[in-house]
């Protein structure tokens, strides 16, 4: 998937000879076209980026500054005040820890579960394989909300409400991730597995020391996909978590808006803190991120 993006990059930057020859007589027309294109892109750029800027303005200003006319367009000096207030309201560091811990732990376990299932579904023949794979595929069509209530009852019956386990468990087997990983495992050369087998390697060893290392890009993309799924997860944690100290970021943020007095400076600080780490993460790992988030679309 990441490879595809590289190809895209190359093919867009490359002009064919024919186009280069065509270019000269068309120069004027092209210039006009370029003006159009950049204007359009410029407008979209402002629309895409402005809310992020506004979020930052809000996080560094007093609550009332978000509703002035003329608008406050420069960062203020309320950063620390908003942060302190936010921490008093929802215990921001605890919430940040909860979200990171839950998402991190989820990625590790879900990746192990999904990758091993995807691997045997791609590379082995065994009874019931087709049935299992079809069941996974079909379940992707089922809205998550249809399982919500029995899951809640289950957690309640086992006294697991308000635990990290309850947040993570239901989505550990993630059929979409299995599907994506399977596509990648299918491309792994079976001959390599055969020759390792002849050398006396066990099946587990083949998987861990031969297959896994060559699947790093696919696993990275799947990890990002799983991480984002859990980091953004809202409805389920909202249902199973009920104390401030267990809240994940989305639940805590949402609870801020339910207070009788809403301090928008605090809220914007919360929104900023929930967004900036992911943006930083995205900007450093763009390619893996995009292929992870798009999933099979690029395959």
């Amino acid at each position, binding site marked *: 998937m990441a490879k595809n993006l590289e190809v895209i990059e190359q093919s867009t930057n490359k002009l064919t000879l024919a186009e280069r020859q065509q270019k000269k007589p068309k120069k004027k027309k092209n210039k006009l076209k370029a003006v159009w294109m950049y204007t359009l892109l410029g407008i979209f750029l402002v629309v895409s980026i402005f809310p992020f800027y506004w979020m930052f303005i809000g996080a560094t200003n007093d609550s009332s500054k978000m509703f002035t006319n003329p608008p406050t367009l420069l960062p203020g000096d309320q950063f620390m005040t908003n942060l302190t207030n936010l921490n008093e309201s929802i215990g921001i560091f605890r919430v940040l820890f909860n979200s990171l811990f839950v998402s991190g732990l989820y990625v590790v376990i879900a990746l192990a579960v999904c990758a091993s299932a995807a691997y045997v579904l791609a590379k082995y023949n065994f009874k019931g394989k087709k049935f299992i794979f079809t069941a996974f595929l079909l379940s992707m*069509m*089922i*809205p998550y909300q249809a399982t*919500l209530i029995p899951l809640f*009852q289950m957690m309640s019956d086992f006294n697991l409400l308000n635990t990290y386990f309850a947040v993570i468990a239901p989505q*550990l087997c993630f059929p979409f991730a299995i599907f994506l990983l399977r596509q990648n495992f299918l491309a792994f050369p079976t001959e390599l597995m055969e020759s390792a087998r002849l050398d006396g390697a066990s099946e587990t060893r083949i998987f861990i020391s031969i297959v896994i290392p060559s699947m790093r890009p696919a696993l990275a993309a799947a990890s990002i996909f799983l991480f984002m799924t859990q980091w*953004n997860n809202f409805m389920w944690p909202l249902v199973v978590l009920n104390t401030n100290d267990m809240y994940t970021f989305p*639940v805590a*943020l949402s609870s801020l808006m339910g207070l009788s007095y809403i301090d928008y400076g605090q809220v914007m600080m919360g*929104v900023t803190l929930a967004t900036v780490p992911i943006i930083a993460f995205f900007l450093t790992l763009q390619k893996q991120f995009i292929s992870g988030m798009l999933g099979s679309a690029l395959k």
Partner: protein
Amino acid sequence: MNRAKRFPYLFAAPAILLFLAFTVYPIIASFVLSFQERVGGEYVFAGLKNYTRLWNDDIFWTAMQNTFIIFVVQVPVMIILAMVLANVLNNQLLKLKGFFRVSFFLPAVTSLVAYSILFSIMLQEEGIINTALSYIGITAIPWLSDPFWAKASIIIAMTWRWTGYNMVIFLAALQNIPEDLYEAASLDGANKFKQFFYITVPQLKPVILFAGILSTIGTLQLFDEPFNLTGGGPADSTMTLGLYIYQSGFEYFDFGYASAIAYAVVVMVGILSIIQFKIAGDE
């Protein structure tokens, strides 16, 4: 069974067990639950009671209608915008492609709750969006307090978040269209517009279908945005099926009824997916 034969089962076992416990069981249980009601703390069989109630429930139909309106407006608008942007970004003359691509994709990495809250603040009566509009002579729009504009708010917010995401999908697909198709078409005298509708669109059909299905499932389950942006209001004008399931289940604790709504959604997702596959042909 020897070890090599046991291996695949061993490796698939965790996924299968988790799948049985947390997907298969809940799906069956919620189906059963949708035919039950609570009588004195116990769930007892109630026949079709939940479903007949659903059929006569105005809020359910309002939620259906809202979902439908949001879907019918938001998805095409977003797909057209994404298509236009992808085509512009695919242009050979353009510089800074990477920069534009990343910038347009950026909204898609924000958490659903965070962006919903951000928009709920920007769209307030005296918020930045109305202030900006006042400079071009548009009087304040009651974004969140008017039934029509509340829906518009949700549509605008969703379009902001998802357009870049879909654009990147389309852009990737555009790169895979063989260049000689266009060359042949221009030799035959087809102009850019004709080329777009007779080559680009048909070539992108599978990808548009994929984006369409994702958006269908997404819209039918819409929850985070109405919950955080409009709270379902005013007067249920942004009530969605997802929100109604949540309210019935966890505000009124009517698990049987909530399961019936959820099953209605399951059936609709199924039907719509089949229709979309049929329209697009089998590919």
